[in-house]
């Protein structure tokens, strides 16, 4: 027969000294301070600025919601919204599909996985501005490497950067190239967390490799894929730097996306910080809603 030990010790441990209670908060305080100063405060300031007008960047006149109504009645804004939506949808779809295929390939790779992973990850480390400049040379219709290869196999010399419909394709391809390694690494870690005994059981039951991917891998990878889709969606809406150096927003404004619209409003003459801030708030709302919808859809599909 066993007897229960007295609970005296446990009761005593519930009363921690104040220094131990405060310690976790002190550890996170510097980080929270930096976050508040460099993220929260500028965001609040930006929201506030969206209700003001400034023609010189220093004197501000309250205008209520005039900036918002002005933007929403601007035909160029809606053209920019269409371009941003087209880019984001293309970029998210292509990035997720290719990164998934790449992750599956790397996962199946026994030798050289590390070296290959590093190679695919490399574009993530290059400055997007440099990426834009390099791809600008590579996609030149007359002298670019891409068209030299296409021309050699009889596919002509498409005007990647000079035909509006192709320019949007070009920025989707380059955007995908930049982010591919990052998304593939996330998906690879998701693949590695899948229990291998499931594949062994499936193999014993006579499953083909494609059936294993379709019935085991993809369903179990879905939560990781949702993370990638959400990250890619945010990156798509925020794309700017490599596009600005690759196409300058052209041809004929076909690749001018939301962030460039904000940038141009904020820094062109006459300066319109209020208008730019209002556009940034609209972008934030759109990104938030789309991300939230993605999240809800992801949760539902997980539940199923």
């Amino acid at each position, binding site marked *: 027969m066993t007897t229960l030990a007295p609970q005296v010790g446990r009761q005593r441990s519930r009363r921690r000294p104040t220094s131990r209670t405060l310690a976790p908060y002190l550890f996170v305080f510097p980080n929270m301070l930096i976050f508040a100063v460099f993220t929260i405060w500028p965001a609040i300031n930006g929201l506030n600025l969206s209700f003001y007008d400034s023609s010189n*960047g220093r004197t501000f006149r309250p205008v209520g919601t005039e900036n918002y109504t002005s933007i929403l009645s601007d035909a160029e804004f809606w053209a920019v919204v269409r371009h941003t939506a087209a880019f984001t949808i293309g970029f998210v779809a292509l990035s997720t599909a290719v990164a998934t295929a790449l992750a599956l390939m790397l996962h199946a790779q026994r030798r050289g996985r590390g070296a290959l992973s590093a190679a695919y990850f490399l574009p993530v480390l290059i400055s997007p501005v440099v990426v834009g400049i390099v791809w600008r040379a590579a996609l030149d219709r007359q002298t670019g490497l891409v068209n030299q290869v296409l021309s050699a196999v009889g596919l002509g010399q498409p005007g990647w950067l000079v035909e509006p419909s192709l320019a949007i394709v070009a920025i989707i391809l380059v955007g995908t190239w930049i982010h591919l390694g990052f998304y593939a690494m996330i998906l690879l870690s998701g693949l590695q967390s899948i229990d291998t005994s499931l594949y062994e059981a499936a193999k014993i039951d006579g499953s083909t490799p494609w059936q294993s991917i379709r019935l085991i891998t993809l369903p179990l990878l879905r939560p990781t894929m949702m993370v990638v889709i959400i990250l890619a969606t945010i990156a798509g809406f925020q794309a700017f730097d490599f596009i600005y150096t690759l196409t300058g*927003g052209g041809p004929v404004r076909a690749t001018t996306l939301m962030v460039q619209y904000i940038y141009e409003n904020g820094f062109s003459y006459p300066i319109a910080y209020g208008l730019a801030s209002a556009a940034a708030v609209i972008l934030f709302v759109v990104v938030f809603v789309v991300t939230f919808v993605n999240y809800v859809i992801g949760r539902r599909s997980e539940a199923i």
Partner: protein
Amino acid sequence: MRTRTTISAAGAALAALTFTAACAPGSSSSTSDSSSPKTIDVKSFKGKTLTYVYFTDGPDEQATRTAISKFESETGAKVNLQILPFADINTSLQARLSAGNAPEAARVADWHLFKDEAVDFKQYFGKDYASQFTPGAASTVQDGSGHMYAVPSDITINGPMINVDAFKKAGVAVPTKWTWDELVADAKKVAAANNMKYAVAIDKSGNRLSTVLSQYGTSMIGPGNKNVLDKAKATKALTFFTDLVKSDVAPKDFWLGSGSKYTGANEIFLAKQVPVYLSGPWQVGAFAKNAKFTWAAVPNPCAERCGGFPGGKYMTAFKNSKQPELGAAFVEWMNRSQNQAEIDKTAFWLPTRADLTKSGIQYPSRNSDMSVFVSQISETPTDTWAGEASPAFTNAAKALIAETDKVVAGQQDVKTAVDNLSNAVDKAIKGAS
């Protein structure tokens, strides 16, 4: 052997523009013999530092550095020269000014953007300071109240340059006067004979495209900051130009591939891909150094009118900088007679000072090319100067490029483009007033 380029022709032409200068209240017809500051002792700047934000067209960088060294040794002040790409200068300066981080001085192509922040040079150097410059140049740096918010550091005039070797090989005479139709016919012949990709190249710039508008008889903005766009003439000009680009006689990829940013076609000319290139005298120094073929500046083509389109570069100083007085003194010093002359010689700039315009500048080479550009000043219609001097010009020029882009890409016809342009010019004028 060095020859002497006399700029008296320019002086005469600019003197003819006195009506423009007369429109600028505060400018004076009297001249001041003193070119030194009236209220500033430059010796008091010893040990102080000023930041000079600058963009370069090439050889002017060394000329500027040399002048800065001289300024530093004369005053004991230090100059922190910060060089930015031309396309980024306005954005970068606006960001710095908004952030309360104004440089002491800057070189700009449009000072109107910064007039709220700029010092009034007349406050430092007297109400007659503007009269040290030619009436035309002086008129471009004063606002309606006669404040002088910038100093004209060099005057420019658009004009073509040709690949003389290519012309000779094709058996086409170097032109001394030609129409646009003759230019295109000659250029096509030369391009074909030399296996060049294009016949004519023009910078993607609203200022350069304004040259074509002017030659076809119209401008966007006239005296009194008024919309003077003649739609019929603008339609003719844009039809002619966009047909050139659409047919790849002028490089279509270059035009469409540059996005919304200013882009020079100088590399295409230097790569011998085009025999005729419309730009301006600021290219002379760079071409003298880098062109691997014989080239020459030639007169502008004529349509309804001849001549080019004026422009200029300005130096301004900022009143909210750490050393506004030093900034103003630096700008004044750089544009004193001897100093501006030294820079002009190396940079192949056309002077803005009345005395230098009268005496002429002796360039170390390419005098005949500089003379051609000078001759184009007198050929240029006087109404174009009001457009260049207008605070609305930058945005009107942007609209001209944007509307032309859509025509070239097949998204709209020329008539729609001209209608849109006229509305955009109205909007630009309203925004700038």
